[in-house]
């Protein structure tokens, strides 16, 4: 290890390495554009973006959580529960604000518990959030008694299906939150501390930063974003459903990994996650347009994750 010192002494040319995910994304887009004439239509591209937003809303906080060397397996289940709470609240009160407050509240509560288990009880994040995954899933089934919640008023659906200034609302929401996360990670203390949480917690302790609180905050941010995503999901499916987003946390984790964020040492970037989410979206969309059988789509999703990580691995191994 010590012997890398010399080479590092000369300032390295600042050539950003092209991440595996970008190569994969461009390759996929080229292939689909060549094969399927509809792929590059404005309608379809906007389609892909709109469909990717819910996953993006989960994958961005997941990126931050993974950068702290954490993981949140409960996100899909919390999203489901939040969506049910939102649907029930909106149906009974006709108030979007109350509904959203309820959903975000549920998310924050689960995020707090996750963060508390991880930071105060020092339970490994995988275990802690596997536990809360079960709790959220159970609560979702109990709250809904296994039934869909319907009768969602029109104004809620408008959140998802409406447009503002000619741009679909979900894209605007996604863009706004992307900007927020970018600023959060690169222009605030919080972002600096997130990388320190994953990279070297002792450094924070010695700098007098109360990192336990930061860690709880990161998980709470994840919960809150699940609450926001619940708004879009509920508006999208026009109902609350007890299994609507089960397993979505794994999609989010895969997108983050695809984007090149590492599970160690606080090495991650939010733009990579955006690319990861889009790659998943483009792949699904393209395969659907090409009418590829569903079984092949399933396998392709798995292969995509493996190939992108393999490409990243190849490059990082070069000296």
């Amino acid at each position: 290890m010590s012997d890398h010192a010399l080479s590092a002494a000369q300032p390295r040319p600042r050539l950003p390495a092209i991440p595996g995910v970008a190569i994969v994304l461009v390759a996929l887009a080229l292939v689909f554009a060549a094969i399927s004439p509809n792929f590059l239509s404005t309608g379809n591209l906007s389609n892909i973006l709109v469909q990717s937003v819910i996953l993006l809303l989960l994958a961005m906080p997941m990126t931050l959580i993974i950068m702290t060397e954490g993981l949140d397996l409960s996100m899909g289940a919390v999203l489901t529960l939040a969506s049910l709470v939102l649907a029930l609240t909106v149906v009974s009160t006709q108030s979007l604000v109350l509904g959203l407050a309820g959903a975000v509240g549920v998310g924050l509560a689960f995020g707090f518990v996750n963060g508390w288990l991880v930071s105060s009880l020092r339970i490994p994040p995988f275990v802690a959030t596997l536990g809360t995954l079960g709790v959220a899933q159970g609560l979702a089934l109990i709250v809904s008694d296994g039934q869909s919640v319907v009768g969602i008023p029109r104004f809620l659906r408008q959140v998802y299906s409406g447009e503002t200034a000619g741009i679909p609302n979900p894209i605007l929401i996604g863009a706004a939150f992307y900007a927020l996360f970018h600023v959060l990670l690169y222009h605030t203390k919080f972002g600096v501390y997130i990388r320190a949480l994953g990279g070297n917690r002792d450094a924070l302790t010695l700098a007098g930063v109360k990192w336990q609180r930061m860690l709880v905050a990161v998980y709470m941010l994840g919960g809150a974003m699940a609450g926001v995503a619940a708004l879009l999901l509920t508006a999208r499916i026009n109902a609350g459903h007890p299994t609507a987003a089960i397993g979505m946390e794994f999609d989010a984790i895969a997108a983050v990994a695809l984007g090149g964020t590492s599970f160690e040492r606080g090495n991650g970037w939010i733009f990579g996650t955006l690319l990861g989410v889009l790659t998943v979206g483009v792949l699904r969309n393209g395969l659907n347009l090409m009418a590829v059988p569903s079984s092949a789509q399933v396998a392709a999703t798995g292969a995509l994750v493996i190939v992108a990580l393999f490409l990243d691995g190849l490059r990082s191994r070069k000296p």
Partner: protein
Amino acid sequence: MLNLKTLVVAFPAALLSTAALADGESIAVFTKNQTNPYFQAVRVGTENAAKTMNAKVIHYIPTKPDSIPEQLSQIEDVIVKKPNAIVFIPVDYKAMVPGVEQINEAKIPVVNVTDRSAGGKFLAFVGADDYNLGLETGRYLLKKLGGKGNVVIIEGVKGSLTSIDRVRGFNDAIKEFKDVKLLASQPANYQRLQALQVMENLMQSHPQIDGVMAANDGMAIGAIEALDGANRKAQVIGINGTKEAVDAIKAGKMLASGDYNGFVQGCIGTMVAIRALRGQPIVTEVVLKPTVVDSTNYQPYDVAVESRSCPAWDQAAAMATKTN
């Protein structure tokens, strides 16, 4: 009779700019998952019908079984591709309504199959009456038991329309027999293994179980395996009339299965869609009559779905419960 029921419906064809299409139409078929044999039967039915009518079908199945967001995405993608018509089984009859509305907006004619959607405009609905299927099959079991004894119900996925209606049918059948006692009603999510374990556990709490009503064949067979494993006997019924259930009925292990006939649903759904495109007369609702498959009448079901063939349109139209 036939002529009365079958009326010409001209408007869907008029919507199409390419009304002249005689054949080669593409039909997008939406099913819930890749694992349940029932949906495979539907898919084979659609393919069979399309083949005879010289059209082609493309299947869209969520990669995650029964995933609502994924089926919605698939609808959006399919709309871009603009197939001539859609045959549609919603993964959730309530939550997929926005998807159906998008299809309607894109002016793609769509036929609803199996689960009746809670909203949206369809050319027709083709399905079976889950409630009556449950009621009839349940009655059949209870009569075999001599109108008395202890029974358990194994439910499907909680909140799914098919499970709710079938279980309601079971319960109403039980109410008709005063001497029948319902011991328990537990969900096993249409999963064989879960049904097996639920049954194993139920046998612990209930030393005498005479009859088992399962909301599908897979669960019924899971329950039979559990009974076999414990060396206990009970009469078991399921629903769907799958090949596996027919084999079990033949072997005397299973009493009966209510025929849900996904194959025919697929056939008729596709026929309606294609006929509408070609400006031919269609029907607007087909609810298949419940048939209980038992050891006396299993022969027609004792063939793989792939080697069955669709009914002719006259026969199909004869089953219609509503026409325009």
